């Protein structure tokens, strides 16, 4: 059986042959109509131009028009919610970086104060990033709970679970490295405590702490190290892994909820009868 996928271009925008009633009665278009027609065509021809050279519309349809099992519900949106939280963090983070200075002597603290008190909408963007980080961590856990309780980690989706666990760890590392950056008393001492807790891992713990601090004590390089890990290393890794995660979701399709029963094939039903 062949399935026909719907066309992603809305009806209104699709090219349509000119009809006798169109235009100003004599089959020709009024100047306004002609402009509208032309601008409609412009969009289509740009899309067509790109598609002819990339074949991206196929990929788009493959990703967007999938078969979804019966009974999927709002809990299936938690992954996309997490993705949105990540994007929000990425965007606000990029803009915070325009004002933030990773300078331990006083620049970091001062630049955050400047963002909060003086920059237009600075407190708002900073607040989005700060509260958004908690939102993202909460959403990751809720999404994980959804996939766990729906049995979505089972064959053939084990690899997606493993990628998910890596994403969870990376997300927590983002929260950890970001916490130091305001460099106020709270963030400083919380990070001291967190690095010390990390050091209690036997054998490698002490060395890992030295790596995180760039030495035996918190110093100027600790802050730039955390900053670089927070804004370059981890976001790159997370973005790449989200790509792999979503590829697998698209490739394997989403799971049916555990309470939905498989429908019997019609021939089987007939033989039973």
């Amino acid at each position, binding site marked *: 059986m062949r399935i026909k996928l719907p066309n992603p271009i809305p009806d209104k925008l699709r090219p349509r042959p000119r009809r006798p009633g169109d235009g100003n009665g004599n089959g020709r278009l009024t100047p306004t109509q002609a402009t509208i027609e032309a601008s409609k065509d412009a969009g289509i021809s740009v899309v067509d131009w790109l598609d002819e050279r990339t074949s991206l519309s196929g990929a788009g349809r493959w990703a967007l028009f999938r078969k979804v099992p019966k009974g999927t519900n709002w809990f299936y949106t938690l992954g996309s919610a997490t993705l949105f939280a990540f994007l929000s963090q990425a965007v606000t983070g990029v803009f915070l970086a325009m004002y933030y200075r990773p300078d331990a002597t006083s620049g970091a603290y001062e630049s955050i104060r400047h963002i909060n008190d003086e920059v237009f909408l600075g407190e708002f963007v900073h607040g989005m990033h700060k509260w958004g980080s908690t939102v993202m961590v909460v959403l990751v856990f809720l999404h994980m709970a959804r996939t766990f309780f729906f049995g979505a980690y089972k064959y053939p989706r084990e690899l997606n679970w493993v990628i998910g666990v890596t994403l969870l760890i990376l997300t927590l590392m983002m929260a950890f490295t970001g916490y130091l950056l305001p460099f106020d008393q709270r963030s400083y001492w919380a990070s*001291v*405590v967190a*690095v010390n807790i990390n050091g*209690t891992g036997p054998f490698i713990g002490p060395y890992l702490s*030295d*790596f995180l601090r760039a*030495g*035996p004590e*918190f*110093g100027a390089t600790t802050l730039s190290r955390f900053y670089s890990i927070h804004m370059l290393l981890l976001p790159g890794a997370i973005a790449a892994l989200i790509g792999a995660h979503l590829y697998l979701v698209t490739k394997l399709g989403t799971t049916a909820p555990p309470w939905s029963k498989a429908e019997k094939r019609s021939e089987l039903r007939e033989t039973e009868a």
Partner: protein
Amino acid sequence: MPNRRRAAKSPYTADRNIPGAFEGETVTRRRFMTGSVQVFGGIAAAAIGLPTLGFALGPVFEREKSHWEDVGAAADFPDNTYIPKVVTTTPGVGEVGKTTVYVRRHNLQIDGPVRDSFDQYVAISNRCAHVGCPVRYFEASQRFICPCHGGVYDFRGARVGGPPVRPLDRFYTRVLNGRLQVGPRFSVNSELRRFSPRDPGEPLDGIGQYLYPRRFSTPELHR
């Protein structure tokens, strides 16, 4: 049949009936190219990866310089209470690089005999041995108390209550021309035996000293 089997074992690609084989060639060009791409790709990746990895890991293996800081005239320190002093443990980062040490003279009744030249004065770190909050010395109870999770240490800095896993760290001290100097940090186990500095939360009694080995960053002690 036996003939063809011998041919398949021949080292020459031409004898193995591989299309396009050259005379005297022992490996196909495709295989050779695959191999070289992998080798050169590996070299290129290592050329970027190894230096950057070393760059990031360097501080773990770098030995800190020991540095001594003057805290006042040696005669000013009593042996029955502590005087708090602020010293710089990490230069170049302002307030953050400073830490408080509680200093007093060695007390024969409490500390036992003087062990060596570094033991004439006791300098106790205010970094809690639980997870590193700053402790305070309370004169009334002669105890160090931690605000975070209620760690309590006695007059010698040994743990008497709460979650800390070992006594408070100490600093080496020395007297030069009548001035007292505070040097590098060291940790102690519950018998106050010296160990190279450990981070908070790492016990030093029994198996602890092996689970949390000495770090490469430990500074050398210059007398």
